[in-house]
């Protein structure tokens, strides 16, 4: 597979790390695994780490926005971190960076959740 996922249930948040290529083909598995984890687990917030993501297109924007809506509907927050310049550009174009909090790395993502 061209996308690998790692899910870690942290104290403050579910940490999801994506590795590889996030496109329409691989978005499905990201959607269903995150959806399941958020619905079934005791998840308050989500941190999505894109550090090892080598490619993303607008299908990635869709799946991120979808999970953002899901977690905010539960009263939680979503933070995206380790965003490459290419992905950041997509965030800017779509206005996603205006609604989803973007942090430099996992550490600052966790602190940003604690600060509130």
């Amino acid at each position, binding site marked *: 597979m*061209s996308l690998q996922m790692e899910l870690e249930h942290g104290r403050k948040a579910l940490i999801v790390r994506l590795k590889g*290529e996030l*496109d*329409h*083909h691989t*978005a499905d598995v990201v*959607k269903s695994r995150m959806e399941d984890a958020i619905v079934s687990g005791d998840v308050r917030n989500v941190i999505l780490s894109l550090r090892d993501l080598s*490619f993303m*297109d*607008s*299908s990635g*924007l*869709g*799946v991120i*926005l*979808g999970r953002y809506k899901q977690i905010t509907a539960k009263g939680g927050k979503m933070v995206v971190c380790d965003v490459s310049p*290419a992905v950041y550009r*997509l965030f800017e*174009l*779509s*206005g996603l960076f205006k609604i989803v909090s973007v942090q430099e790395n996992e550490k600052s993502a966790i602190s940003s959740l604690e600060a509130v």
Partner: protein
Amino acid sequence: MSGANFMKLSFASRSENESFARVAVAAFVSQLDPTLNELTDIKTVVSEAVTNCIIHGYDNDPNGIVTIAAEIEGDTVRITVEDEGAGIADLEQARQPLYTSKPELERSGMGFTIMENFMDEVDVTSAPGAGTKIRMVKRIESKKALYN
């Protein structure tokens, strides 16, 4: 080099071919010695256009055919991505940022906007029932810089 270099690629409308399509086009374009950013732009727009053929053109039916043509002439690459699927009734609406006809599939509606932002020219020909053809043009800067 005499004349333009070209390639033409057709494949089944399966989502597993999205990654193959963008790698193939990127490998072709890399003859122009593009920067990494330019290559990412090209991969992204090919991914957008091919995904649209599969999802919207063929409604996720794997039996359709997606066709890509690419041509390199001087420092310019021309790419067309084409399907023989559903076509688009209202092109102006379709090209609006954030517009999508399939919000239930978590589409972002950003495909066309990305193509327009990442390429120098984007031109769409489409009619309901007659498929969709996207023509895109990009001048590759790195090569230009070399000749200055």
